[in-house]
């Protein structure tokens, strides 16, 4: 049981490039989330999904897109990367009212 798996662990992007951060969970959780965490700061919700085919914006969605075609996968797409998107990205999942299980994160630098 791997929990929540994120790839890649590290990435350096040039301004204007695009990439997809992968997230998959094997716990059959309905809810999935993407957060970003800037250095020394808290977690800000980018997008979330309550089930396959359903996604919704969090507090900082601009510059990102998501899709949820299966229960297991919740990729995050960055279009036209900007330095302001330099951050650590965490994917998480939960079932019902239970606590979140987080992946180990993707450390992204945009130069």
């Amino acid at each position: 049981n791997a929990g929540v798996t994120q790839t890649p662990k590290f990435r350096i992007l040039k301004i204007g490039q695009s990439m997809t951060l992968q997230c998959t969970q094997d716990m059959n959780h309905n809810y999935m989330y993407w957060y970003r965490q800037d250095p020394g700061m808290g977690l800000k919700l980018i997008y979330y999904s309550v089930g396959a085919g359903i996604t919704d914006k969090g507090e900082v969605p601009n510059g990102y897109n998501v899709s949820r075609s299966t229960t297991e996968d919740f990729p995050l797409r960055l279009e036209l990367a900007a330095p302001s998107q330099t951050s650590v990205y965490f994917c998480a999942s939960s079932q019902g009212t239970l606590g979140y299980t987080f992946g180990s994160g993707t450390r992204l630098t945009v130069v």
Partner: protein
Amino acid sequence: GQQVMQIPQYQHVQEGEDFTTYCNSSTTLSNIQWYKQRPGGHPVFLIQLVKSGEVKKQKRLTFQFEKKKKNSSLHITATQTTDVGTYFCAGNLGGYQKVTFGTGTKLQVIP
């Protein structure tokens, strides 16, 4: 929008001293969760409190959810170096399982 603040932002304690972090919400919460994030790591779920006035213990950690369900606290008795990290509360207004993370309290334990 919903605000969840934590105080203090930083705390340095001598090993063996007690530590408390406080979580304050601008609105009444349906439940509150606590997470620990080790340096360079990802948040790990510790506990969830649901009932008004609820108190839960995990070994040296005591969690409280005050009666009005706007405030919560985490108290660590006799800190150890393994307690080092950032402690986040996360408040849920209800409905979909989408929480707002607090600003976090970074704990440093001096041996």
